[in-house]
């Protein structure tokens, strides 16, 4: 384990700049032969950017890549593959309409007399897959195989093509526990053959189950690389969420629990495969924070509350009256609002103007038969552009030309224009600059003072603590803990996520 001979892939001082943002800042990463190395971080931490720099999908802007002792600079994924770096993605990148064997040997089919020798190809495919303890009909179409088998086929192809470094990008996201175990057995075998494996996931228990070392990134920077065995779960979560342990956090202003009447009550609310049934009460003028790691069910909770996903169990009450929220339309009728996490795909409509984006939800509620008069639209747009300080040269500018923070504010304006009484914000400060963070937080606080009920999902624990009176902690698609008043501190939240983890581990 000593000397550089152990290192199969070494990345030093990697830099990657996107217009307006530094995605990777002087990141170092070293992969040993025969190790499984977890690459962890929240959304936007830079894991996928780093991987893309290694696989040649992106050209890095600075730094050195050394594979097997030689400098490399892959121009594209093929070159990386030829050099020995193979990648398997969460979405299986194989062709469902070809057979298993054709997928394994596409572009390098064995030939005889110039024609593809199908029998030989099938025989080789069979032999290759038997090395993965997979005994399937290689002549069957790939689409007839389960996702787990497809995943194994993808790994077999990647290893067969490259053979030095294997990058697994969230390969387990759509597998069940048994299939994950099968996959891990394969990864262990590849590891014993001396392959270096980079494993990206957001399931921490899988990290501890299979990984030797862990590298954590945050905001494009390296937080650290540790041996998995010497890194307690709690410390790992703190690394990922950016809290040093023991650091005491200033108490937020609104520590006492709200005392208003409960306006929204959800009992046993859940949807199979999305989020375990949970109970949730929200009072008038209260901000309830939702914390948890990526994939813990945060967004699923928001979607089910808003009716974007229909709940298949439980009841919802508004002001004591039982209601059924089966679609976003009914949710809007009950004066719910929802700002989704990914505003590029779920929120803004890029080519419409700021004004049109702002009046969209209000118009949807009124129905197409009663258009909002143009003067009224202008008035609304101007009001929110001033009130939220949306920085745009004029209200008719296409919204895609605005910065992230201003787009976010425009989406907020869209929902505020409908006069919601219950507003769900999913990651309202993601991907916007620091100055805009403070403004959004101020906005959340003032909305709450006006008597609105809010649910805010955020991975920025500082912010969550600043405005939440209660924080619900999620893990593995279930609500596992609730912190109230005095308990709402970042270290408590980190602890709650970690403790919940231990519970799970102990079972």
């Amino acid at each position, binding site marked *: 384990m000593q000397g550089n001979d152990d290192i199969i892939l070494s990345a030093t001082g990697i830099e990657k700049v996107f217009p307006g943002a530094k995605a990777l800042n002087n990141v170092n990463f070293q992969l040993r032969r025969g190790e499984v190395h977890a690459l962890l971080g929240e959304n936007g931490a830079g894991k996928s950017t780093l991987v893309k720099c290694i696989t040649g999908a992106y050209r890095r802007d600075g730094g050195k890549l050394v594979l097997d002792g030689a400098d490399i600079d892959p121009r594209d994924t093929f070159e990386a593959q030829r050099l020995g770096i193979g990648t398997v993605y969460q979405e299986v*990148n194989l062709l469902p309409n070809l057979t298993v064997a*054709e*997928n394994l040997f*596409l572009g390098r089919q064995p030939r005889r007399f110039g024609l593809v020798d199908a029998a030989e190809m099938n025989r080789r495919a069979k032999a290759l897959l038997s090395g993965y303890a997979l005994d399937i009909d290689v002549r069957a179409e790939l689409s007839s195989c389960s996702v787990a088998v497809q995943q194994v086929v993808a790994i077999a192809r990647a290893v067969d093509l490259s053979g030095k470094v294997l990058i697994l990008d969230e390969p387990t996201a759509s597998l069940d526990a048994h299939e994950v175990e099968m996959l891990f057995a394969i990864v262990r075998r590849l590891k014993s053959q001396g392959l270096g494996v980079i494993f990206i996931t957001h399931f921490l228990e899988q990290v501890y189950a299979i990984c030797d070392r862990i590298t954590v990134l945050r905001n494009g920077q390296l937080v650290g690389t540790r041996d998995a065995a010497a890194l307690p779960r709690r410390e790992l979560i703190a690394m990922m969420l950016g809290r040093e342990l023991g650091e005491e956090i200033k108490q937020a202003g609104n520590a006492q629990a709200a005392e208003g009447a409960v306006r929204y009550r959800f009992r046993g609310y859940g949807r199979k495969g999305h989020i375990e049934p949970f109970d949730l009460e929200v009072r008038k003028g209260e901000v309830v924070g939702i914390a948890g790691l990526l994939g813990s069910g945060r967004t699923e909770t928001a979607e089910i509350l808003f009716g974007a996903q229909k709940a298949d169990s439980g009841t919802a009450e508004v002001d004591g009256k039982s209601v059924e929220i089966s679609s976003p339309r009914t949710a809007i009728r009950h004066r719910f609002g929802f700002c989704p996490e990914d505003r590029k795909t779920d929120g803004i409509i890029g080519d419409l103007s700021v004004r049109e984006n702002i009046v969209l939800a209000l118009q949807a509620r009124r129905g197409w038969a009663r258009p909002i008069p143009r003067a009224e639209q202008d008035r609304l747009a101007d009001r929110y552009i001033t009130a939220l300080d949306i920085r745009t040269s004029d209200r008719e500018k296409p919204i895609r030309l605005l910065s992230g923070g201003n787009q976010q504010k425009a989406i907020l304006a869209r929902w505020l224009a409908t006069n919601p009484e219950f507003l769900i914000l999913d990651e309202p400060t993601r991907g916007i600059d620091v100055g805009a963070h403070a403004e959004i937080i101020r906005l959340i606080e003032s909305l709450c003072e006006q008597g609105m009920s809010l649910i805010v999902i955020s991975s920025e624990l500082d912010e969550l603590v600043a405005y939440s009176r209660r924080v619900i902690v999620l893990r593995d698609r279930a609500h596992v803990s609730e912190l109230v008043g005095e308990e709402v501190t970042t270290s408590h939240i980190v602890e709650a996520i970690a403790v919940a983890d231990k519970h799970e581990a102990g079972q």
Partner: protein
Amino acid sequence: MNPRYVPLAATVAIFLAAYALCFLQYPNMLSTRVIGNLLTDNAFLGIAAVGMTFVILSGGIDLSIGSVIAFTGVFIAVVLENTGLHPLVVFMLALGIATLFGGVMGAIIHHLEMPPFIVTLAGMFLARGMAFVLSIDSVPIKHPFYAVMKGFYYRLPGGGRITLIGGLMLLVFVLGILIAHRTRFGANVYALGGGVQTARLMGVPVARTTIEIYALSGFLAGLSGIVFSLYTSAGYSLSAVGVELDAIAAVVIGGTLLTGGSGFVGGTLIGILIMGLIQTYITFDGSLSSWWTKILIGLLLFGFILLQKGFLYLSKNKRRFA
């Protein structure tokens, strides 16, 4: 049965059932004369449909086929009339032009990222227009070599004839089947039909394959044009209008998925034969309007589209519960 064979099996079953029905009513339908004519009469359509099969398997479409056939015919007729070139040399020239024409369309589709529908639509107008530039009249071909070629045939027992062009069509189908299923190019065609992005990630040379597919389609349309000129002994710029649509119909009836990625070249032959059979039946009957051909083909197409939808729906459900 492997689900990928279901549409092909349906096609074969329909063909056999239809032939059996025809035979019950007109026992002569099974004579080698009818079969020989079936091949000869549909030779040009069959050859063009092989090219169309490759295009559709890759997820594209080629609307220029009919125009290229007409252009090739007029080109051959005009050149033979005005020069002393041997027909074989003219054929080579015509094939070269048609192949280049297809290849350029493929290059435009790939490099300018244009939908094949629009590019080949433009190609359709262009080729038809070029045919008109060469001649607006029907130009007869009187070269003695044409008579020689028409004299080539293989006599089947019972008096039927496999003519040169009928045999050529069968040969093109055999080669097409080999190319589709036994070459890397063929695998790449299916790969493109399965998903261009994924195919690219898996190392398929997307640009080269796309250009080759349309060049192949152009080549076969040119060959089809030669066959058509042999069949009619003339070149006329208004001929072969809508042949591309007949070819698409034959491909779909032959069990190839219009969305690409799934189907067989052999199925297209059956599709051609089904369409030819309907035509033959109407000829035998004598009292039916020939438009019944179109009506029946229309109904068959609807049937196959429904079959494909149902098939896709079933396979999706199966995957969900797998």
